[in-house]
């Protein structure tokens, strides 16, 4: 069989399997030149590893750890219990998390991101984690343009409950506040942006806004009305 350079590389990198692997193996065994190519590939790998391995042992600059801790504080990394506590008693955003972040230098980015990923999901129809936090404490007027959950607007439904339209990469929709928390009234499925892609939420937002028109009683809250509602814990009376 004619063994290409690509196949030799794939063999040396452990990428071949089954029939092809056996054929290439046989060809290599029969041809010292092919074996030399495999050896050269492996030698290069070792040489690269020698060059790059020491880079792993460098001390990590504090600006990175600070960045991660800062990101956590700013975005309120919450565990589930914390999310529940937050719902029960709206707290001053950020305050608690500063102290948490102090101890969180050790928390890994992995953990942080896993927490964020999971917190996007909701169970039993109630917003949780990051979404719940945004619904609780983010005001349309003051929210960061880079916030991962954007609040579109706030209003009251026919029953006088406070509701908020939201939009994020994972999901968009409408949530209304009741005694348990933010009940998801309408969820427009995750815009499954491919990893590394950044897609605008345009169409989902339009859908949310039309859902709001169906639910809303009266007009949307203005900045002051929204702030007062937040300070009152989004309770309807």
């Amino acid at each position, binding site marked *: 069989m004619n063994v290409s*350079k*690509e196949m030799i*590389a*794939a063999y040396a*990198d452990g*990428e071949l399997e089954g029939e092809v692997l056996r054929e290439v193996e046989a060809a290599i065994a029969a041809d010292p030149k092919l074996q030399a190519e495999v050896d*050269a*590939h492996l*030698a*290069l*790998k070792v*040489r*690269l*590893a*020698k*060059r*790059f391995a*020491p*880079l*792993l*042992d*460098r001390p*990590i*600059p504090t*600006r*990175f*750890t600070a*960045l*991660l801790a800062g*990101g956590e504080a700013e*975005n309120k990394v919450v565990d589930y219990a914390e999310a529940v506590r937050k719902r029960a008693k709206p707290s001053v955003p950020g305050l608690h998390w500063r102290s948490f972040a102090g101890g969180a230098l050790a*928390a*890994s*980015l*992995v953990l*942080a*991101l*896993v927490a*964020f*990923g*999971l917190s*996007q*999901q909701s169970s039993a129809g109630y917003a949780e984690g*990051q979404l719940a936090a945004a619904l609780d404490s983010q005001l349309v007027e003051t929210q960061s343009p*880079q916030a*991962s*959950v954007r609040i579109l607007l706030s209003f009251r439904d026919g029953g006088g409950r406070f509701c908020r339209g939201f939009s*994020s*990469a*994972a999901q968009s929709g409408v949530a209304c506040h009741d005694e348990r928390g933010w009940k998801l009234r309408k969820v427009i499925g995750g815009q*499954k*942006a491919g*990893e*590394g*892609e*950044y897609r605008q939420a345009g169409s989902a937002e339009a859908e949310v806004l039309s859902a709001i028109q169906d639910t809303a009683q009266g007009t949307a809250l203005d900045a002051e009305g929204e702030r007062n509602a937040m300070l009152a814990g989004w309770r309807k009376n």
Partner: protein
Amino acid sequence: MALLPRMRRFAAGLARNLTEADDLCQMTIERALRSRAQWQAGTRLDSWMYRIMRNIWIDEGRATTRRMQTFADPDEGVAVGTCGGQEQRAELTDVDRALAKLPDEQREAVLLVMVEGYSYKEAAGIVGCPVGTLNSRLVRGRDALMGLLGEAS
């Protein structure tokens, strides 16, 4: 944070200058934190971060890299290596120089597979090209490196 050392290594391979590499790292972390909602639980976080880094590198890093024209500073190489014998010092810059001469697409293929140890499929996913394309870039990059380093003999 467990990923940081590996991310910095990959950045160093891409950027060829440790200061620039750490800037790249920082931008990657910032962008990852900003767009973490787009990361799908259950998929590999490291691949996702690498993909972000690579995109930033293409968007912003390349122009700077081109301007610098110098490859890894030998002094930095020493600071990096924990044991810095004279011989190893030369070795470091040889590899750096050879890598720096590769076209970007070949260098990233070599780095992802031969240094970071990704499978062809994972590496192709990060780069966003078919597996076959990655395989041939890898081979071309590898052959060029061997030629430059005299490894083939």
